[in-house]
């Protein structure tokens, strides 16, 4: 029998006309209200049985006022957050060349391992005999970190990179106190190109920050360090490879200069991913360095955390590491949690960074990454990261300007905005136009030592085809900017869920939480 319900299967209409929709939605791009606008305080997405009869023991502290928390049923919850997720760009969406942030692939094996009940469902204060595997994992990770960096010890507990910096500087301060030089050694040298966290961390524990100017080639001059360092100097904080994407070639001389002055060498390990398996900070004179497990060892960035920032320490600083730390005994591994007990074992901990033992969930993911790569794979990953960045540099050097000349970089390549001069397009505009092309923008306006900086870090996770398309896109954009096609940039993004946002308005009259709309009668008055 003839099917009379056939339908057209080729598009027939002009596809260039854009129709406004009734809902404001654009197919997969859905407008999603706030939970406060779709939920209500008497709705819930969990079923909880009423408790057995009991006499409350809350005294006069029982809550009497309403809280004002809306609930959603489970299907509403699912849809709300799935729709929100669709407004986000992640590494799994596309190339994410955010310099200095290392947006590499996040293997899902790591997620699976972190969710093994033996890791995720253990309490930090269970008897230690019941968590020997967790301690073994921490100890194994510590061994990998110490071996990869060529250092003596590692303080595991810091919760993120900046927290690791704080831990490292506290260890340095503790060592200076132990030397009786607390009153005189108060200065920390910080190059102009440093991450903003470096001076912030130093200031937090009352060190004075002394800036080190960066020389013409984007690196730090050891003679300048020698001239700025003296008996008042506690430490230098140096990022290596630095934020310009360059290896500090005089790092050994810098270390010697700071050590000669009696200070310590703190390395910001944010860019350690470029040299894993190629060089060891311990061989370069480093006394302390934090490691961002979420950068170098692929634990997910998760929209801004959680991070993890273990700090490797030299022999001179190791005794000052905070509690807790792991000790091997005849009965197994022991977590030393108490300062007094630590002293019994010959340590001089400067204190404690956080409750409990640090970011176990991140340790599991990092070790899973390390075991997967192995020593050979991690060396290869560093080489590929550096190769990819240099490939991008080589393919764009004729169009975009390199502030320190067209020479090899490490894992990220830094351009400035000289090449955009007189085009009417700024670094920001260029970045926003990348969004329309389906890319996350690179890091911009950082480091501060370069005007209109664009810092591109492709990571080792990109295939050659992916890089080639990225390069072709940037070339097309660059040519368009130079050609005077400014509208493509100054109004960008055109295709993102939202257009450019008014940050001035947000800061001038901050709205930091949802408030119920005024009743209509009141509003009419």
């Amino acid at each position: 029998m003839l099917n009379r319900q056939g339908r057209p299967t080729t598009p027939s209409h002009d596809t260039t006309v854009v129709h406004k929709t009734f809902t404001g939605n654009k197919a997969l791009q859905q407008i999603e209200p706030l939970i406060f606008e779709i939920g209500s305080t008497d709705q819930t997405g969990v079923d909880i049985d009423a408790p057995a009869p009991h006499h409350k023991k809350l005294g006069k502290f029982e809550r009497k006022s309403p809280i004002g928390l809306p609930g959603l049923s489970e299907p509403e919850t699912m849809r709300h957050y799935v729709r929100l997720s669709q407004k986000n760009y992640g590494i799994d969406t596309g190339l994410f060349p955010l310099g200095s942030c290392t947006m590499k692939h996040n293997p899902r094996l790591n997620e699976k391992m972190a969710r093994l009940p033996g890791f995720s469902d253990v309490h930090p204060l269970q008897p230690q005999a019941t968590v020997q595997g967790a301690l073994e994992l921490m100890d194994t990770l510590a061994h990998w970190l110490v071996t990869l960096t060529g250092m003596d010890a590692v303080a595991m507990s810091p919760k993120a990179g900046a927290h690791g910096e704080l831990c490292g500087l506290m260890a340095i301060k503790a060592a200076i106190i132990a030397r009786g030089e607390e009153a005189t050694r108060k200065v920390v040298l910080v190059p102009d190109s440093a991450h903003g966290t470096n001076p912030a961390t130093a200031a937090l524990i009352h060190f004075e920050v002394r800036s080190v100017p960066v020389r013409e080639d984007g690196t730090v001059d050891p003679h300048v360090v020698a001239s700025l360092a003296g008996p008042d100097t506690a430490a230098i904080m140096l990022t290596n490879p630095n934020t310009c994407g360059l290896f500090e070639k005089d790092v050994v001389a810098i270390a010697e200069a700071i050590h000669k002055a009696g200070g310590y060498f703190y390395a910001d390990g944010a860019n350690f991913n470029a040299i894993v398996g190629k060089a060891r900070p311990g061989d370069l004179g480093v006394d302390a360095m934090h490691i961002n497990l979420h950068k170098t060892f692929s634990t997910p960035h998760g929209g801004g955390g959680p991070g993890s920032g273990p700090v490797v320490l030299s022999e001179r600083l190791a005794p000052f590491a905070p509690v807790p730390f792991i000790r091997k005994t005849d009965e197994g591994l022991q977590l030393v949690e108490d300062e007094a007990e630590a002293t019994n074992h010959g340590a001089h901990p400067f204190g404690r960074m956080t409750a409990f033992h640090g970011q176990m969930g991140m340790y599991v993911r990092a070790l899973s990454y390390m075991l997967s790569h192995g020593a050979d794979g991690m060396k290869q990953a560093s080489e590929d990261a550096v190769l990819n960045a240099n490939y991008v540099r080589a393919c764009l050097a004729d169009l975009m300007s390199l502030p320190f000349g067209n020479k090899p970089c490490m894992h990220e390549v830094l351009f400035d905005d000289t090449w955009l001069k007189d085009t009417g397009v700024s670094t920001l505009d260029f970045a926003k136009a990348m969004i329309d092309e389906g890319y996350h923008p690179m890091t911009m306006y950082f480091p501060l030592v370069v005007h209109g900086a664009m810092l591109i870090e492709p990571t080792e996770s990109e295939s050659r085809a992916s890089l080639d398309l990225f390069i072709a896109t940037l070339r097309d954009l660059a040519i368009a900017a130079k050609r005077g096609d400014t509208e493509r940039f100054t109004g960008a993004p055109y295709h993102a869920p939202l257009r450019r946002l008014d940050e001035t308005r947000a800061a001038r009259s901050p709205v930091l939480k949802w408030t119920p709309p005024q009743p209509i009668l009141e509003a009419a008055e």
Partner: protein
Amino acid sequence: MGNTHYTKDHEYVRVEGDVATFGITDYAQSQLGDVVFVEVPKVGAHLKQGAEAAVVESVKAASEVYAPVSGEVIESNAALEGTPATVNEDPEGKGWFGKIKLANKSELDALMSEADYKTYLSTL
């Protein structure tokens, strides 16, 4: 405007009698961008020349405003805390930060005249 003086940190001081009105220059506001917050000097504070007197913030930058001269703060422009945009719109008029009772008039000698400041700007 012969009695207006300028600092290298882009503050101006307008002197009437022994009272100096100060704020940030038009160049400073244009460099900062949209000002979103101002912390004006505290009335009654005794400031030394060069001491931190106020804070001005845009979306992407924050900077301290230093006392261009020494003396006691006798008035501050509290209206700026509610309408920081005034600093962008009229920095050397309604966008003033504070008034200082001059402790040492000779300090003014070391500051720049309007012409000198213009020359200074052309070197930046």
